[in-house]
């Protein structure tokens, strides 16, 4: 066994709160951050609910205009969380430490804001209402802010954090969904374990709720177009889809030895990882992972940690509330943990937080660490009746004092990728 890779700093942002303590308290109280979309007029869309983050912007982060002008919500969230995770670990004081710090992040799709392009498009219209490309190329594209292209690059949010914090280590930007965040944590942990850098940030952030992300979610069949109230009900027999959630998180990973040398008594270690691919419907590339792919990803994470399935106390499911997604995941979970007589518990945060896509597994990882520290598992939002396909495995009604020590976290894409992480108490 190699040396444990532990969490020594963490920060998240969700629709429930800008910080961990309040998000955690709200989850224990059974609150949801899902509500009506207010950032733009969504009245024409068949889904008008989402879990939106507020109060994280250039003012709250004290960013100069030249930096913030190429940032959108995902960049602000990543900047806030990375800065706080570094600060909490105590590493930001040391320039040398920052230079030996890497950063692996999952970043969701980056969409243009209509106001960035609409002037250039309007000015280029011909008499029939089409686009006159001669006008666009000759003159009108110059109406676009010259640094706008940078804001469209998936990696710029990570690079801006690197500049601000002085990070020079190993790095990658994965995209765009939950499986990417699992990979980001796995690569960050492997980099620490193999000595590539002494500390590595692992982060993930989802997409801003906008007309583009909403259209994308609808076109991929992941959103609930039926229910206006409490639209995301993971593992409910009456579930009808998910909702988009804004937010994300960042953790700082270090070896246990180094953490202890710096006087930090860590709570938990990332101990296993698995990834697999397989479409639920092989003929349709926009379906989520199959039960087989999910089971393989989970099995690998457990096996690589040197654990057996019955030693897993809790599965934090991808559990996005889509009819087919939850069905495939439940089939995989009930298969892997069969004959265990339900000692393993099941939880999903998405009824309370929405689906943070590339941000979801990092938020779940931070919540898992808090569960290990407090011994409590929040109830899955609204799962307080007997209509769950997951039966008694699903934590529902009230927070459960279960003292979980080994937690499996799932994160999927909508196109066949499955990823799983194992977090263990030290």
């Amino acid at each position, binding site marked *: 066994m190699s040396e444990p890779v532990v969490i020594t700093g963490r920060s998240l942002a969700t629709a429930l709160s800008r910080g961990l303590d309040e998000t955690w308290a709200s989850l224990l109280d059974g609150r949801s951050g899902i509500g009506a979309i207010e950032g733009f007029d969504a*009245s024409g869309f068949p889904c008008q609910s989402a879990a939106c983050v507020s109060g994280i912007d250039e003012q709250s982060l004290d960013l100069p205009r030249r930096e913030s002008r190429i940032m959108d919500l995902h960049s602000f969230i990543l900047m806030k969380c990375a800065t706080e995770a570094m600060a909490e670990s105590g590493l930001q004081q040391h320039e040398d430490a920052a230079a030996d710090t890497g950063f692996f992040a999952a970043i969701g*799709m980056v969409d243009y804001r209509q106001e960035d392009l609409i002037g250039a498009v309007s000015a280029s219209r011909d008499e029939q209402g089409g686009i006159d490309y001669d006008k*666009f190329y000759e003159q009108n594209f110059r109406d676009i802010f010259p640094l706008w292209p940078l804001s469209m690059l*998936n990696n710029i949010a990570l690079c801006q954090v690197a*500049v601000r914090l002085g990070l020079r280590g190993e790095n990658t930007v994965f995209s765009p969904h939950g499986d990417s965040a699992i990979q980001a944590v796995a690569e960050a942990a*492997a980099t620490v374990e193999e000595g590539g850098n002494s500390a590595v940030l692992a982060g993930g952030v989802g997409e801003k709720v906008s007309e583009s992300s909403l259209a994308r979610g609808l076109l991929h069949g992941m959103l609930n177009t039926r229910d206006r109230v409490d639209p995301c009900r993971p593992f409910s027999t009456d579930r009808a889809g998910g909702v988009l959630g804004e937010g994300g998180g960042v953790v700082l990973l270090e070896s246990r030895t180094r953490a202890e040398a710096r006087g930090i008594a860590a709570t938990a270690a990332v101990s296993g990882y698995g990834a697999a691919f397989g479409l639920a419907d092989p003929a349709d590339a926009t379906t989520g992972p199959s039960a087989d*792919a999910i089971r393989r990803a989970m099995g690998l994470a457990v096996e*690589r940690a040197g654990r057996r399935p019955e030693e897993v106390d809790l599965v934090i499911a991808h559990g996005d509330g889509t009819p087919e997604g939850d069905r495939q995941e439940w089939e995989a979970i009930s298969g892997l943990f069969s004959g265990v007589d339900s000692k393993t518990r099941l939880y999903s945060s998405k009824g309370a937080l929405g689906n943070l896509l590339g941000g979801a597994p990092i938020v779940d990882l931070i919540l898992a660490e808090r569960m290990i520290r407090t011994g409590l598992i929040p109830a899955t939002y609204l799962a307080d009746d007997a209509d769950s396909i997951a039966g008694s495995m699903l934590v529902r009604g009230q927070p459960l004092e279960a003292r979980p020590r080994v937690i499996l976290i799932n994160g999927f894409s909508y196109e066949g990728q499955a990823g799983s992480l194992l977090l263990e108490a030290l």
Partner: protein
Amino acid sequence: MSRIMGEKRRVVVTGLGMATPLGLSVSESWDKALKGISGIRSLRYPAAEKSPVQAVGEVSEDDWDQIAGRFPDEAVVHGERRTLFALWAARSALDDSAFAVSKADPGRCGVMLAAGAPINRLEDINPWINPEGGFDYPRFGREYTQLHRESIMRNNTHRPSVLVAAHCGLGGPNGTISSACASATQALGLAFRNIQRGESDMMLAGGADSMINPVGLIFFVLLGAANTTRENPSGACRPFDRKRAGLVMGEGAGAVVLEEESHARKRGARIYAEVVGYGSSMDAHQVTAPDPKGVGAARSMAAAVSDAGMDPGEIDYINAHGTGTKLNDMAETLAIRNTFGEQADRLVVNSSKPLTGHLLAASGGPEFVFTTLSVHQDRVHPTLNLTNPDRKCDLDYVSEGQRSLSVGAAISNSFGFGGQNASILIKKYQS
């Protein structure tokens, strides 16, 4: 994390594939590269006569038709150029390797691809502009199903890696890297590590991108990095030359089969070369320009050499990022000097970008293919258009024509906008 495997496993290259402006065949593309025949031409994209960018590396219409004919279902449903290029390159690499997925454990065969972003189409905005000049959100909400198949709202970044895995039947790890122009080399590096750590036995890795569309064509013009030469397009991209004037965009894909060494040996595979080191770094300088001292670039090269357990003196050849922008070429030259010291003068350095154009997120893919062939065949292609050397770019860039030399080990560099750097180290295979 706890590994089942203690020792790092060896990783070899057993299959090569590409779709670039040079063509769809690796051997023909390599032949053109050695002879110094560029794939950069005058723009043929429709309705773009007034585009400020006219010199580009486009995959030819005939080649596109051949790709679409090879993947008819994907072409009809998805249509995106980057995705179809990825399918072509990956399928070619798999065929070249003679790797039979059916005889392997598909769960231990994966995909790690760099992919450029889907397309921002002006036609996704125009129909919904209201009479006041604003965006009509409610009407868009009722009509979004009319969006074109290539719209960014119908395509996620990972569409290429998804379709490659589905087409080739690969059920192992599957990832998409979005680190700008460093993406493909990072994808190759992470695939290498994935096999090394024992998480898979085979990975299809590389990258695909196309930004030859209206927003793509003005993208680097806005940033001040584009080459806007209108005459002599094949001479527009001039890395390390005094008259270099910005990057020339290309499109396409490059993909390779990376395989665990004993697995390849047991099935009698042709082994082109061995991957032995990978490193990445961040500039932490500013997101609008590379560090002029090339500190980050030097760091990634040094990390790759150190990861391989080699000395800088053992490297013979570097396939440079070499974009032909003022800033990159000088910083990269300085970084090479700082990394290799006195050894820098005996290094051979070239840039593939005058041949294919800058394939952006995908650029590390075809460049890895060329670097592998150089290690395999002891030949390097020339850097085209280097006729007036910049005094501050003072390495041996192979400006006079292809060269034969013993290439025991080589590095391929890719540096991304924003300040992400990656270097991968390929060595001659010895069993």
